[in-house]
């Protein structure tokens, strides 16, 4: 953006990525408008309002200097872990699992905040760790604990999707921090062993069911497999160019369940086709690439790890959700950020973007000086 046309603070905003994000969100609202049968209520309107409020909040967050993030990384992490414990405890007291913490004026979902927080915490840890220690065991176990505790708590809720994302976010930072590759290879092998064990001992019946049905959706076309089958029908019947705006039958005739939340991509694909889908995927990839570039341009180890880690968190959102709706992953309840109706994912992703912009600001300042 030309600094001659805009006042200095505005001109310094990363406009390219902001426009991209706004485009995605706007497209999301168009899809929600259609999902509601051609009405801005109940979804598109409130989603739009919330988006701009949260975008403003993200811009505000971007003013927070990098050192503040570094300072609050571990305390924030600790606070969220406590909140997770509180959720568990309340759930135990009230008899029944829950994910929310009701603070009276607002209900928050601590596990959602844990997604960026785990990235920050791990980045902070590796920032503190002397470079020479990177290849020692001491570089691994604290991070593993940092990841394991919240992931375990979230699993208890039970929320497989979020737990997976926390693990993935933390592991990404570990990978970027230079932990020996063989640990990841070994870890991958370990996971392969652990999956059948977890499947047998840790997963709830409904989660186990989802995985079984993911493996064979047609086995239960009217039960849990219904979601995947109908989603694939919506995407597949959209063809290359889609059925046209407001012409989707799967969503309008209620065959596609959760067509405005987790399966919003299917609603979109039915009406906008392969073209719309590829453009949306491309837009997300560009946003994520920007995030990784921010990390590569960053000057401090903390900023580098944080930026690339947060970008990857956004990536996991998108990738898991799309794999889910296209029948490549079990239904784990991860929404498509900025498009799906709902505040949690939107808030998390915009918070990530805010932090990324904050690091970007720092980079540019450093570059200017």
């Amino acid at each position, binding site marked *: 953006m030309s600094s001659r046309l805009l006042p200095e603070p505005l001109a310094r905003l990363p406009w390219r990525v902001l426009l991209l994000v706004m485009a995605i969100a706007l497209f999301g609202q168009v899809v929600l408008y259609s999902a509601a049968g051609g009405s801005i209520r109940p979804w598109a309107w409130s989603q739009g309002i919330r988006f701009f409020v949260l975008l403003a909040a993200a811009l505000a967050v971007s003013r927070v200097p990098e050192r503040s993030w570094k300072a609050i990384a571990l305390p924030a992490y600790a606070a969220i872990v406590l909140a997770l414990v509180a959720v568990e405890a309340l759930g135990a007291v009230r008899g029944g699992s829950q994910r929310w913490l009701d603070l009276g004026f607002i209900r928050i979902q601590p596990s959602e905040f844990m997604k960026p927080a785990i990235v920050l915490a791990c980045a902070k840890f590796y920032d503190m760790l002397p*470079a020479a220690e990177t290849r020692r065991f001491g570089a691994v176990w604290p991070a593993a604990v940092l990841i394991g505790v919240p992931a375990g708590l979230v699993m208890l809720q039970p929320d497989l999707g979020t737990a997976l994302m926390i693990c993935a976010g933390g592991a990404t930072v570990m990978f*970027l921090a230079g932990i020996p590759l063989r640990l990841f290879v070994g870890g991958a092998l370990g996971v392969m062993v652990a999956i059948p064990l977890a499947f047998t001992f840790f997963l709830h019946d409904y989660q186990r069911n989802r995985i079984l049905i993911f493996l064979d959706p047609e086995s239960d076309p009217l039960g849990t497999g219904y979601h995947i089958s109908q989603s694939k029908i919506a*995407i*597949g*019947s959209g*063809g*290359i160019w889609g059925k046209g705006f407001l012409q989707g039958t799967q969503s309008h*005739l209620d*065959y596609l369940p959760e067509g405005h939340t987790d399966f919003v991509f299917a609603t979109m694909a039915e009406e906008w086709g392969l073209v719309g889908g590829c453009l949306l995927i491309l837009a997300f990839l560009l946003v994520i690439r920007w995030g990784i570039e921010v990390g590569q341009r960053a000057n401090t180890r903390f900023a580098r790890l944080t930026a*690339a880690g947060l970008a990857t968190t956004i990536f996991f959102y998108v990738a898991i959700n799309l794999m889910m709706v296209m029948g490549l992953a079990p239904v784990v309840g991860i929404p498509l950020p900025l498009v799906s109706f709902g505040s949690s994912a939107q808030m998390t992703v915009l918070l990530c973007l805010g932090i990324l912009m904050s690091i970007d600001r720092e980079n540019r300042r450093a570059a200017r000086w």
Partner: protein
Amino acid sequence: MRRPPRIVSEAMQTASFSRRAWLLGAAQAGVGVMLAGRMAWLSIAENERYNLLAESNRVNATLIPPRRGWLIDRHGLPIANNRTDFRVDILPDRLRDDERVIALLAQILKLPPEEVARLRIDLERAPGFQPVQVAERLDWERFAAVSVRLPELPGVQPTRGFARHYPLGAAVAHLTGYVGAPTAEQFKETRNPLYVTPGFKLGKDGLEKMLEDRLRGQPGAKRVEVTARGKLVAELATRPDIPGRNARLTIDAGLQEYAARRLGTNSGSAVVLDCRTGEMLCMVSMPAYDPNSFSDGISHLEWSMLSENDHVPLMNKVTQGLYPPGSTVKPMNTLALMAAGVAPTERVFCSGAMRVGTGVFHCHKRGGHGPVDMKTAVAQSCDIYFFEMIRRLGYDKIAPVARELGLGRKFDLPFSTQRFGTVPDSAWKQRKYKDRWTIADGLNASIGQGYVLANPLQLAVMAARIASGRALQPSILADHVHHDAPALPFQSEQLQLVREAMWAVVNGGGTGVASRLQIPGMSIAAKTGTAQVRRITMAERRAGVLNNGQLPFKLRDHALFVCFAPYENPRYAAGIVLEHNGHTIRNLDTPLIGRDIMTYLLDRERALKSLAEVEPTWGGDIQTRMAAEAAAYRAEHAPAPAAAATKTDAVVPTDAPAVEAATDLANRTQETLATDGPSGETPAEQGTTENSQ
């Protein structure tokens, strides 16, 4: 031993980060490409499949039952057609204020409480877009009453559909069979949605069942867009039905009806064949049910009335009734005798009885016929002539000729069950009873009793083959006529002699003089027959054989008749069997019935006039008599009104177990008589009791 860890500097760490961040980005781009690829696979490669699935989600087709193809007679007259049916359905989705609407409908249509209960259950179970039947076959008044009050009846659909109609009613029942709603089992077997569409009927019996594929047609579809919850969104274009194909029969509808009426109160059957082609011109089994009311589903009362009737109206006697052919086999016998070298002029002296071993065999004429040659033996139906001849030659010489003329044969006809009887010989008896063939067996068989059993169609075929000299095959579908039947392996003089003998039966002072045709220049050739269904003991014979009129119905003799006409140039052949007729009433006996049926073909006016004269003597035409019978039965078995209204599932085909059993029972009587062993102490005394007038 563990390798000491590599020392990592900050610079190395930065370089490592760059590498790994690049790697991460590349992996993410890879996943992006993979997702795009997956999407392309779904939306391009599998697009067609998913489009179909999406369409089948979206569109729900309400089937329109196809119009059934007609059954038409040889001249194109309808035997089974479709008439407009006024019906009322409910579209559950559009139904508001259910209770009020149902109550109002019940009041307008005068629905019995059971029907209302059924309607409620159907409404509960049906998906919203699928119409549910309220009532069918409504009269115009009730239909109009619903149509007028439609604004008060949201969701109610008065519809004009089609219902099967048999203009000739009971006269064609065993020919056409009838139609009915598919059963739950049939739906489960096929999962064909058409089977649960209101108004759809399929063939349950007879030709309707056997020709189902040809007659059914393709259903039309009223297509509607529905939501996942079955709510109707919009009506789409309607696809019209493709009516089923018509089937032209060789039957002459006029003759069919005439023969059915002419049989009167008899429990009997009549088949007429065209002597040139083997086409079946009529196939009548009476009494019968009314296929029109059967196609609606019949009441328990109607069902029990039909199944209790000793005239077995549910049995198709033409293809399923088996009877000892009696003396009707005698012309065939003479053909066999000539083929075995017996000279027609050779005489046998009939003294009225004949001793074979320890048994005595009687002729039907107590005093005997005196000396008889072959022609006289047929004309006078002399039993002793055939006893003597067959005692000399053995029945194994006769049986092949019997088969040659169609006895014991199964024909290629579209009827699910044909019982084809027995032509016995020594090998057959050895096989079936592990027993030796006796002379008495042969003598009994020679007069069409004992083990010999045939159905009326076979008798007609026998007559047609004698008349034509060719191995005619009967046919009933106009496109399946067996032309070019080969000649029979007999000399034409031999055949001619048989025909002359049959002529003499009617016109030469024989046993069938009553059949004499009253059309100048034409004459009929025939053979009468009587089949005993009981044993006449020595004691009874001494005291005087009981008159048939003194016997209960089930013990009276069967009356049989085969004929062809005109003798001068044979065109038509017929076989008539009257169960337990006993030759008691002249107008209702075979000779006059046979004569009138032939007269219908040769001089219709005369035949109709003669029927108009005699029909009132036995209580009027078929419908009148059936109505009277039903009323009498109803009065006798006064049911609670509710029971009368309950409909049975209209599954009572004539091959249903109950009917099978009844048919079996009727046929077994004959077999029992045969196997009681007409040898040794108990002499077989089944003589023919011809009513020579």
